[in-house]
Each structure stands twice: as C-alpha cells, then as structure tokens.
C-alpha cells in the first residue's frame, strides 16, 4: 500500500463527515415532507405573500376578543355576529380557543355538495339548526368537564349526522381537540388535517387548528409530523404565537428542499430554495427562545417541543445553508453565533443539543479545511457523554492523526473500541489503528489489528451483501432494522436507526402503534367499538404503512451505503496488510544482506507526566466510565527511520 492511501481515506472521511454535518440537525425525511422538486414556482408564492400574512395579525389586533388568552388572536376575517355557543375553556398550556367568527359572505368558500362532509344544498331547517347547536353545546360541555372521550364521540356523532351540517365545521375542530386531550396526538393531527386542507378561506377554524397543530406537535417526540404539515400549509399563514417557529420550520424545509435540488443537479433552483431558507431564518426574531418559559401548572417542565432556542436553531439553519453553498467562512460565523446564543450564561432557553451540534459542525469545517488543531479544539468542546460525543471523539482521532499525535489517536480508539461501546459501529477505527501502527513501524501490531478487523467485519460484509442483495419490499428492511440482530449485525442495524431520518420515522411509527394499541385499543368498549375508533384506526394504519414504507426505503439506502463503505474499508485493510508484509520482507532481506538483524524500531522518549489538573492512571485493561475519552497511548517504540508522510498528513499550523 502506498503511504498516501490512508491519507486519501482521511480525505474521503472528511467529505463524508461534512455531508453528514449538513444533514445532522435538519432531519429531512423528504418523502415525509412531500418535497416537491417539480414545482418551484409554487414555492415562491409564500415568499411574496409572507409580509402580508405577517401584517394581518397586527392589523386585526384591535378586533381581537378581550378574552383571557396567552396568545395574540389569529387574524379574524371580518367582524361578525357573536357566536351562539360558548367556547371551551382551555386547559393549562393549551391554546386558548379562538372564538371563530363566521366568514363574510364574500370569503365563504364555494359549498361543495360532498356527502362525506355531510353538506347539502338543501335550505337550512331552523329546527335542525337549533338541534345541531344544542348537540354541539352539549358536546362542548362534555369537553369542558374533561369528559374528553365522551365528547369526542359526541362531536363525531354530530359529524355523522348530515342534518347538522351547519355545525360540522366546529364539531370537526372540537373533535380534534378532544382527541389531542385524550393523548391521541396523531389522531388529533389527522383530524386537524381535514380543517387545514380547506385553507384559511375554506374554514373558520383554520388558524385555531394551526395553533393546535403546534400545541400537539410539542408533545410528540420529534417535529417531523408538524414540519410536514407546516410545509403543506405554508401559504395559509401562521398562528401569531408560533410565528418564529413557523418560519424556522419552513426555513428548515426550504433548506432540505435546496439540498434535494442540489443532489438532483438543479443548482439554480437549489439556490432559490436556499435563498428562501435564508429569508425565512431572518424572520425569526431574537426573542424566540430568549427566555425559558416557566412550566405551567401541572407541568414539571416545558414540553419537548417547547424546549430549545428557536432563534439559535434558525441561525443553525442559516449556517447549514452557508455551508451547502460552499461559504465555509459564513457557516463558521453562524455556527459561532449559535454557540454564543446557547451559552448557558446568556440566560436564554437552554439548548445543549444544539450547542453540541454547533461545536461538532465547527470542528468538521475546520477539519475539512485542514485546520486540525482548531478542529481538535472544537471537538474537545463537545460535552463529555453527550449524544454525539463518541462520534466527535472518533472524528477527533483523525485530526490527531493528521498532526502526528499518534498517542491521542490510539487513546481515542481505545475508548471507541472499549466494551462500553461494543454496540457502536466504527469499523474504520480498526483501519486507522492499523495505519498508526504501520506508520510507527509496529508491524506485528498492525497485522494483529488488521486480522481482528477482517475476522470481525468480513462476515458482516457478507451478511450486508446478502440482505441488500435479495429483493424485498421496503417494509421488510424496516422490520429487519427494528428487530435488530446479534453481534456485529446488531451494531449495523442499530446504526441504521441512528440515521436521524430513520430514527424520526421510527419514533413516529412507534407513537402511532402505541396510539393504535393502547391509546385506542385499551379504551372502554363504547369508544373502541365506535365508528370514530374505526375511522381513526384506518387513518393511523394508513399513516403507519406510509411511514414504514419510507423508513424501509431509507433503511435500505443506509444499509447499502454501509455495505459499500465496508467493502472499501476491507479493500483498504488488505492494501495496508500488503504494505506491512512488504516492509517486513524488506527488513528480513536487510538482515540477510547485513548478516545480522536489522532493527527497524528505536526506543522513544516518553513521559507519563501530566498537568497539575490531571492525574496519571496507567491503563491495565480495565475501563472506568469517567476515564472514557481521556486515554492516551504511550508509544514506547517507533520507527528508527521515520516513514515519510504525504503532505496531506503533515502538521498544519
């Protein structure tokens, strides 16, 4: 193997890492988002309309009802008669009910006589109208009394009665609320979808439903379901309370769309999407995430979706866009801004995960630009034990290798290969270890490491090739990943689940399954056997099947990618092995020519002295949790004549 080979490997790793970096935070799930690459013009519309949409709430502010609310009212289309049915009192944390006003006649959408919506062209019957309002009021009382299950059935009963078409719109909205209150979040979101699909002009409850979308979304484990809906309804405006989050989510969507276009080779359109993403991030106000929201009564902590600093997240998207457009300097500045914003001393809403991610991206950019010491510094700032800490440690090993700090490289690899992380998948760590030993003329060690690597990973490659080679439906891949395996295969399948998109999909699938099995399946018979439960079951099953299909496709892609990577690594290992053999043969030939043994190693000077802040603990084969990441291998012997390294691996200032 030529000495350059490992360095080329390093370069490839950088590119790979950089690509991962760009995807790291903005979990895309394009198919889930329904990114439409064929309709760029459609995407430009909201950009033009946004300012108008933004002004609307301000213009209508005086018209807002003075009811006690945490939130600014949604833009009311026009003043109208007071509602006849009292609104449902919000529970702590819930969006206050916006008493919907009937739209003015000119704004009323054309009535479509679809049976499914129970709308008929028949003139309204005053008796039926009164009965409908009475039924609605009774159902709302149930909701007020927190009899959510009964209320949901009552609203559903109204919806199934064509004669009550007059109140169907509100019943649909209230049914969604009841479902969310029951903890059936995906069912609730599906119910609100029916309202959102009509747009702000088509439904009086559009904005309220949008608020509930954000409210329910906060309780989900990931924001993909909300992101998908926000993207779908981007042109319909946003609830004023969620303006910043709305812009952030849309910016994220546009960034993902830009990346997809870029991958498809449509640079001009990608640039437009990136530009839109930047415009949207600029609309996120600094106050968003500025101060932590105190937990409401009944909450021990703000819900997950409420956590985090939206402004900092928007800056993060900005950095990703800059990076995607090859503006590394701009990306660095934005990432630094994220770090400044997420500094716990700033008193803003804590977002340690975003901070960790920003440090990692900064490190990756510096590594990519061969500023290895800066990269090491940033990797070192990633919090010990954080979610991406091990990944950072692994990447830092390459940076240490590049500056010739073999001790730290091997030390990091010791952590990565420790029993603690035997479920993690870092096959390349063995190759890097072999390279380091090879470069230090420690040929027996290099050979041993390579043997171990091949023994461990050749069967894995065979298995991966077998799995990805046989024709199977995508769902089978998802099932495979979720079922896990044993030994090293388990690591790979786990790795597939660490893909943020797949993980998000798996989380959503899990939530839906839980909702089907427990949320609906364990309710009392009246609910479980109702038409509503049946309808929800069908919707959720369809949604689950769609997500499983997408997750399966992504899992397949991930496994194929890992298969190809592993094949390349095995080839790399083979080249190193040949090179090791060549060096050993040269030494042997030298010995024969000289008539005595040729020594390729010499004793190196080393010290176990550490700074006053540290304590030296010799490694004896035992791993202590609090020592992870601090190991440094003591190289007591190295090359008598240092092997030449390519320029790529020499120290950088």
């Amino acid at each position, binding site marked *: 193997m030529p000495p350059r080979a490992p360095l080329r490997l390093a370069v490839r790793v950088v590119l790979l890492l950089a690509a991962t970096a760009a995807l790291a935070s903005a979990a895309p799930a394009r198919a889930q988002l329904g990114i439409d690459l064929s309709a760029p013009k459609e995407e430009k519309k909201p950009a033009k309309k946004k300012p108008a949409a933004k002004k609307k709430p301000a213009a209508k502010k005086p018209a807002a009802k003075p009811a006690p609310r945490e939130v600014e009212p949604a833009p009311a289309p026009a003043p109208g008669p007071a509602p006849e049915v009292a609104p449902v009192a919000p529970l702590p944390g819930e969006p206050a009910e916006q008493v919907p006003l009937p739209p003015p006649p000119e704004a009323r959408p054309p009535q479509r006589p679809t049976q499914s919506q129970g709308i008929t062209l028949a003139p309204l019957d005053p008796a039926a109208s009164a009965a409908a309002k009475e039924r609605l009021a009774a159902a709302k009382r149930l909701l007020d009394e927190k009899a959510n299950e009964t209320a949901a059935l009552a609203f559903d009963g109204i919806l199934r009665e064509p004669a009550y078409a007059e109140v169907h719109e509100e019943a649909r909205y209230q049914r969604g609320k009841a479902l969310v209150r029951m903890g059936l979040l995906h069912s609730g979101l599906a119910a609100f979808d029916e309202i959102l699909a009509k747009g702000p002009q088509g439904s009086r409850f559009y904005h309220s439903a949008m608020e509930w979308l954000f409210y329910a979304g906060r309780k989900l484990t990931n924001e993909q379901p909300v992101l998908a809906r926000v993207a779908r309804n981007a042109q319909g405006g946003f609830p004023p309370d969620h303006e910043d989050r709305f812009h952030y989510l849309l910016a994220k969507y546009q960034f993902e769309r830009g990346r997809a276009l870029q991958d498809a080779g449509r640079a001009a359109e990608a640039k437009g999407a990136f530009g839109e993403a930047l415009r949207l991030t600029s609309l996120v106000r600094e106050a968003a995430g500025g101060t932590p929201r105190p937990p409401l009564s009944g909450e021990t902590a703000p819900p997950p979706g409420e956590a985090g600093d939206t402004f900092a997240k928007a800056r993060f998207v900005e950095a990703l866009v800059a990076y995607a457009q090859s503006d590394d300097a701009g990306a660095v500045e934005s990432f630094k801004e994220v770090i400044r914003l997420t500094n716990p001393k700033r008193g803003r809403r804590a977002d340690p995960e975003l901070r960790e991610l920003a440090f990692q991206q900064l490190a990756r950019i510096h590594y990519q630009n061969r500023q290895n010491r800066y990269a090491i510094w940033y990797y070192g700032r990633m919090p010990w034990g954080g979610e991406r800490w091990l990944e950072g440690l692994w990447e830092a090993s390459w940076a240490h290798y590049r500056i010739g700090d073999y001790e730290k490289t091997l030390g990091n690899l010791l952590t990565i290969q420790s029993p*603690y992380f035997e479920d993690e998948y870092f096959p390349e760590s063995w190759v890097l270890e072999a390279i380091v030993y090879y470069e230090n003329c420690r040929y027996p060690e290099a050979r041993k490491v390579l043997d171990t690597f091949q023994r461990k990973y050749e069967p894995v490659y065979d298995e991966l090739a077998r799995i990805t080679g046989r024709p199977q439906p995508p769902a089978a891949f998802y099932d495979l990943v979720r079922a896990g395996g044993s030994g090293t295969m388990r690591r790979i399948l786990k790795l597939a689940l660490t893909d943020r998109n797949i993980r998000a999909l798996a989380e959503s699938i899990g939530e839906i399954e839980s909702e089907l099995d427990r949320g609906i399946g364990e309710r009392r018979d009246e609910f479980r056997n109702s038409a509503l439960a049946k309808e929800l079951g069908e919707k959720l099953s369809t949604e689950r099947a769609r997500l499983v299909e997408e997750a399966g496709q992504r899992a397949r892609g991930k496994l194929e990618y890992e298969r190809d990577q592993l094949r390349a690594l095995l080839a790399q290992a083979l080249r190193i092995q040949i090179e090791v053999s060549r060096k050993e043969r040269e030494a042997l030939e030298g010995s024969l020519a000289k008539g005595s043994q040729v020594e390729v190693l010499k004793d190196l000077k080393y010290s176990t002295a550490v700074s006053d802040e540290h304590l030296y603990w010799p490694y004896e084969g035992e*791993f202590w949790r609090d020592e992870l990441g601090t190991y440094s291998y003591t190289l007591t012997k190295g090359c008598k004549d240092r092997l030449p390294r390519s320029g790529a691996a020499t120290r950088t200032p």
Partner: protein
Amino acid sequence: MTTRPALLALALAAALAVPSPGRAQSKADAFAGRIPPVSGQLYRKAGRLEATLTGNLSLNDPFFSKYFGGLKLGYHFTEFLSVSAHGAAGPSRKTGSTVLCPTNEPCRDATDIQLFQVPGEIEWLAGLEVAWSPVYGKLNVLSEQVAHFDLSILAGGDWIAHREAVSREAALAFEASGGSPATVGTYGGHVGLGARVFLAQWIALRLEVKDYLYRADVPNNGGKSLQNQLFTELGVSFFLPGRNRPLR
C-alpha cells in the same frame, strides 16, 4: 493518593472511599445510568471461592488482649454478595491496663483472682458471615502504582467460647485449688466493615474491623450483661479458581 469508587455505597462507604467530587459530579454523571461505572473489571469475585488466613487482634477490651489466628472460607455468589464460614482461636494476654493502684499503696498488676471475675477472655470463636461489597475502586499510589480494592459491610452469627466470669468467692476457691473457671460458649453475632486490596487475580490482602456482641454472665456486675469485643482482622486471601470467571 486518591480513590475513585465505582459504586456508591452507604454513608459508610462514602466516608471511606473519599471520591474526587469534581470528576464524579461533572463527568461520570453524563453517562450515569447509561453505562456501568466499570467495564472489563480486572478483579472479579463472582463464582469464586475465597480462602483467607487471618490474624485477629482485639482492640477495646480493658482486661484481655486476644491474639487469634484463623481461617475463613467464603463463596462469592456475585460481585456484591458472598457468604463465608470462619473460625479463629488463640491466646489471651492481660492488657497493660489491668493495674490496680489502691490508695496509699503502690500500683500492682491485677491478680488471677481479680481477672477470674471479669469477662472478655475469649478462647475461640466460629461463625457464619454474609458480606455485601458495593464498592469497587482503585487507588492511585504516588502517581505510579494502582491498587484495586473493594469495601464490604459484614454481618454474621457466631459461637463464642470464653472463660466464665465468676464471683469473688468462686475465684478465691479456684485460686485455692489451683484451678481456673470453665470455658463456656454462647451465641453471638458481629457486624463490621471489610476491605480487600487485590494484589493479583488470585491473591488479595484483607482488613476487617468487626464488633462481636454476645451476652455473658458477670456475677459481680449483677448477672448477664452484653459484651462487645472489637476485633481487627488482617488476612491474606486466595481465590479459587485463580483467575476471574469469564463473563457471561
């Protein structure tokens, strides 16, 4: 020298282990609950027999110093839990404090008659013991050597054979006849703390401090009274098999 405990024990262990709080708080906590404190533990006891040769010395008896030799055989069910049987016997000597200084008379050693009347002359003891070892740690010795240790809490029941304490009249009679009070046995128990310092996988040094409790008849003190004998025990342990059992 610093210590780093692997697991938190009760207050007792915490006091003995002297953890370095800075690291424990800021670093170990990040992985706490996610991964165990130690992996690839060098010295494991689970599934192994432990034979210990012991030397025991009493600490707090004002009348008799006991110098026992003993044997302890134990089995470790897990890293944390073990049972053992032990026995120890040996001579007792008068302590230096058994000196009487009557008024207007020079001080003199207590006589046999007087010593026959006091309790505490244990001749041998044997018992069963349960040990809970929640702490495994390592010591950095002068930044050069590493010593692994564990800490245990001990409790057990014992049969304690001791010389009977008799009344003054009986003591005089024994003196006159040249005899001595009989040996009597009684049930008792003990609690204590133990520590092992591992020298290799097959050998360890042990240090234990135990408080033996038993009831003895002391006629000059109104009858039965609770006796409390504090022993320190030094030992050398040999583990069988000589190497750690493989992890399952």
